[in-house]
């Protein structure tokens, strides 16, 4: 009976309890929370002026007590720049991943579910998107809409939809033929209800992993767009563009590359770990 009682807790508590069991997921969550706090309290940690004020005397300094992470080619503190880039980069990465998941997911799930002509039509549309290289497509969209962060996110979402649509479509294929979908229809559920309540929970694991992976690729892609002058405009700090700036000084000032790269790594690693842990905690089939 004790065992029973434990199970009667709310679903959230139950998921949390299982989430806590995985040390990797906890580490990921802690890193993510720290980054999130850094993003919120960036101004309290180090003033924004430090991140943008140029100082020709102190360019390309090695890490020291004064400048924890060293300075860049314009003598700006890399530490301050990384701290102030956190909100921008995290926001770009997460929003692109989530928005493209929602839109691509809707396209992919519905086309796998309905099949037939609708599926053909949708997938040919996705094929058209795929036939244009991602960066080029984003560039075109930004060029049309104008260069700023919002438009860059829209452009990246459009370029990413095809991936999430394909991933979710293929994930759904195994489930539509299952008898429980028919059983749900038999119980009088509408198509939309079946997709949301029966199919989405079944493919949640795949979607979560795909989304968390796309966070880091989105941060990097944002960097290449910023590099082309299509995204975040300098001098606004952004991890990807910092990494790009560091390329020229790779031999003379490797720290310039190390710190933003490490920040991206930490962000994507922590989000991946959280995603993995969430998948395991949410999937009742893996419940022990």
């Amino acid at each position: 009976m004790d065992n029973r009682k434990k199970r009667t807790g709310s679903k959230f508590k139950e998921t949390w309890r299982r989430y806590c069991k995985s040390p990797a997921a906890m580490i990921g969550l802690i890193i993510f929370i720290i980054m999130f706090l850094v993003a919120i309290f960036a101004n309290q940690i180090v003033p924004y002026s430090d991140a943008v004020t140029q100082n020709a005397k102190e360019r390309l300094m090695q890490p020291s007590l004064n400048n924890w992470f060293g300075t860049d080619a314009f003598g700006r503190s890399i530490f301050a720049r990384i701290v102030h880039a956190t909100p921008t980069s995290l926001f770009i990465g997460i929003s692109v991943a989530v928005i493209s998941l929602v839109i691509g997911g809707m396209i992919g799930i519905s086309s796998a579910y309905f099949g037939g002509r609708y599926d053909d039509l949708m997938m040919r549309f996705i094929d058209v998107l795929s036939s244009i290289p991602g960066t080029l497509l984003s560039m075109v969209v930004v060029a049309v809409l104008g260069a700023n962060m919002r438009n860059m996110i829209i452009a990246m979402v459009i370029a990413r939809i095809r991936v999430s649509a394909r991933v979710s479509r293929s994930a759904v294929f195994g489930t539509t033929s299952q008898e429980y979908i028919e059983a749900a229809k038999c119980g009088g559920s509408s198509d939309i209800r079946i997709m949301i309540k029966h199919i989405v929970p079944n493919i949640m694991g795949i979607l979560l992993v795909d989304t968390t992976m796309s966070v880091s690729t989105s941060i990097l892609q944002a960097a290449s767009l910023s590099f082309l002058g299509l995204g975040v405009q300098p001098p606004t700090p952004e991890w990807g563009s910092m990494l790009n700036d560091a390329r020229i000084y790779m031999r003379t000032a490797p720290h310039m590359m190390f710190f933003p790269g490490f920040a991206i790594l930490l962000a994507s690693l922590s989000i991946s770990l959280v995603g993995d842990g969430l998948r395991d905690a949410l999937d009742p089939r893996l419940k022990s």
Partner: protein
Amino acid sequence: MTNNLLRIKDLSVIYKTDLETVYAINGVSLSLNKGETLGLVGETGAGKTTLALSLLRLLPERTSKITCGEIMFKDKNILEMSAEEVRSIRGAQIAMIFQDPMTALNPVLTIGQQIGEAIELHSEDTNKEKIEKRVEEVLSLVGIEPVRKKDYPHQFSGGMKQRVVIAMALACEPDLIVADEPTTALDVTIQAQVLKMMRDLRDRLGTAMIMITHDLGIVAQICDNVAVMYAGNIVESGTAEDIFEGDEHHPYTIGLFNSIPDLENKTSRLKPIPGLMPDPTEIPIGCSFAPRCVHCMEICKTGKPTQYVNGSHSIVCNLFAEGGAK
């Protein structure tokens, strides 16, 4: 209001692909009164499941087609209803029990959620507590502790899962339950348990039932009426007594009975029906059973057999036609 719940008249269903046309059901007629149980017997591929699916309009849309006939449920033709109307009937008035409980439950939802879904969809009162209460009621009805509603399907054994599936079907107190081989995936002891439970529940709730099976033993235990299907036709129908104790039978029914072991007679080997069911893409012009029938006559090969009716018992076979040689 008449006592009649369901009347199928001259129903024909085909599956059509680019390569071939499969004649799955060829003019089936049957009727069912309130509270009655009809056993639908026949070997695999006879069109039993297709018949059940067409009742709920669940046939695959792209390949299947109902070519003619009507399905009157409570004096309304299901085949002419809008999608909306059909959805309001599914689950609420006609429910289905599926063959394999292992796949008929969604692995990522708790059984409580799955049972509650039908209730949520069909009752006007969507009070959460009431739904929960009803879920608990239904669960205890099928003999599962209500505390287990928060468990997932994989935490149940096969027999328990089938109980959950039955609970899902019962949730909205439907007038008709279509059970598609509900015990085939279970082992014999559990089979007996589940059957007994279904019988008790049927008697208690007064639900009509269509029991699809290929097991004559189940039919004998639970059904009031029996219809024997062969290659998309009903070849013999009647009350359970007519089928099990009557003197006159369709040769196919005799073949079916010969294929089950008999405790009283000592036989070293069972007598299976020779041959296979006709290819459903090429149904014979005459009687569809003719190629396998030991009593096959010339007229059986050229024209559709005549129907012989004796009270509640009906046999579609030339053997019993007037002047037919027995």
